[in-house]
């Protein structure tokens, strides 16, 4: 199968309210930076474009149609869209390159979550007869998951607080992070609970923003002369929607997707995990079998800023950044969708040859 490389990644700052920036205005600055990074003019210079977004975040149908206005899609381009995190737009693009219909692709995701009440908006992705009409918010579902783990002694509140503190400290080095600071687990534990057993700090913030990536065949990456990382494996798996039917303290689909993506074939230097809640990072790192030799969420992860519909792509982008910076040889990136880690994608990235 064709080797596929990542040659560029850019994201906007994660901000709590992007204010007077519409979808196009959110996307354009990120795209212009990535075009500059890769050395191309606009979307005309790649063979395929795919985006991820969700209409309900800002409450208007066809958000993605506006995204096309940022691309320079005249003459017309090969373009598609998933109503999912842009990590799945990446997945679609990978298939396109593998089948030989493209040598390169631009992938982007964007979301303005601030206009709505995100946890309530997302309650409407639940079962439309039994759960959505109760308006069970996503934070509450995660809180029940966390309590299961605490009750079973799988984690402690201090473990959760350590995750948060590490995120805040790591985010000090991330110019795009929304929440950062030199805090300790004790600082976190001193907070009152918010949605018990979760503290506010256990939950990711609500952020507006966009991110973008350019991928291509390894031959093309060499031709462009850009440093690159190779996507050596990528897979995703969804689980039952009924939270009562799943073991919420584990992530079977993450483990299986990582196996399928070949994660176990080598050492993992860095991992970026899409864990919107602190306890979920612990579930994920255990499901992946990550140990002390793996640097987990050096960017701070989504606890430091969560660009809904782009955060998954950002996890992959953050691993790419570490690899091309020479900080890591090999890394794993994880993305999730749905309540309590229902749907998970894992990508394994390896260092490419020096350009």
């Amino acid at each position, binding site marked *: 199968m064709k080797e596929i490389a990542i040659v560029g990644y850019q994201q906007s700052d994660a901000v709590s309210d992007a204010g007077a920036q519409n979808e196009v*205005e959110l996307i354009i600055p990120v795209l212009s930076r990535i075009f500059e990074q890769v050395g191309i003019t606009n979307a005309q210079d790649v063979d395929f474009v795919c985006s991820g977004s969700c209409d309900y975040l800002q409450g208007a149908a066809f958000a993605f149609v506006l995204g096309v206005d940022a691309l320079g899609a005249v003459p017309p381009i090969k373009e598609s869209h998933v109503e999912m995190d842009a990590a799945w737009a990446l997945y679609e693009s990978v298939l396109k390159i593998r089948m030989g219909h493209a040598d390169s692709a631009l992938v982007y995701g964007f979301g303005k979550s601030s206009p709505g009440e995100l946890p309530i908006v997302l309650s409407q992705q639940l079962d439309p007869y039994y759960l959505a009409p109760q308006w069970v918010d996503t934070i509450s579902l995660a809180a029940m998951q966390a309590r299961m783990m605490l009750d079973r002694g799988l984690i402690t509140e201090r473990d959760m607080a350590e995750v948060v503190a590490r995120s805040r400290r790591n985010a000090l080095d991330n110019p795009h992070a929304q929440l950062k600071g030199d805090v300790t687990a004790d600082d976190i534990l001193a907070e009152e609970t918010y949605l018990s057993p979760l503290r506010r700090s256990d939950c990711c913030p609500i952020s507006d923003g966009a991110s973008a990536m350019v991928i291509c065949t390894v031959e093309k990456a060499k031709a462009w002369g850009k440093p690159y990382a190779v996507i050596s494996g990528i897979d995703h798996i969804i689980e039952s929607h009924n939270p009562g039917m799943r073991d919420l303290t584990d992530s079977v689909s993450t483990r299986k997707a990582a196996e399928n993506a070949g994660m176990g074939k080598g050492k993992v230097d860095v991992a970026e995990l899409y864990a919107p809640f602190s306890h979920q990072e612990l579930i994920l790192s255990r499901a992946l079998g990550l140990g002390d030799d793996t640097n987990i969420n050096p960017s701070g992860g989504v606890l430091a800023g969560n660009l809904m519909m782009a955060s998954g792509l950002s996890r992959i982008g953050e691993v790419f950044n570490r690899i091309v910076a020479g900080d890591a040889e090999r890394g794993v990136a994880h993305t999730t969708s749905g309540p309590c880690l229902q749907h998970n994608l894992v990508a394994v990235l390896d260092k490419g040859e020096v350009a």
Partner: protein
Amino acid sequence: MSDENEMITGIEVPIYLKYNFTAGAAPARFLSQLKEGKLTGQSRSDPGAPVYVPPRGSCPATGQPTDTEVEVADKATVQSFTIVHIPIPGNPIEPPFVVANLVADGANISFIHLMSECDNEQVHIGQRVQAVWRPEEEWDYSMDNIKYFKPIDEPDVPVEHIGKLPVTGLEA
């Protein structure tokens, strides 16, 4: 409504979500001028770049921002139109009414608006129209400041020139 033992086959599910919308910078600039009674298009900064009314944040053809402002006329040409015979949900206007794709003089793209003070059957492509504004005290951040467009006594614009008139209109 139904008896005790009747099987339920359908339910009504109210889903009402509240949002706080913030207009993008380009639309906000357009709307701010509109509140002053001015129709202002936007274009890319390169000379001769097309002028968009209303602007949405980019020149979609190139994906570049529209950071140059150009005042356009409130006279326009009918690019095409439809006569709508059904009500629009949430809009009090009574059918039949004419919704036209209009290109303002000085702009290079059409927007849709109502036409009135005209015989619906006489509306035609290339027809010249002008905005009928609401009283100034009613002006808001809205295209509704223009109540509708009405035909004016100017010669029709040949189809190949629609969308290419300067801000001075036909006189130029």
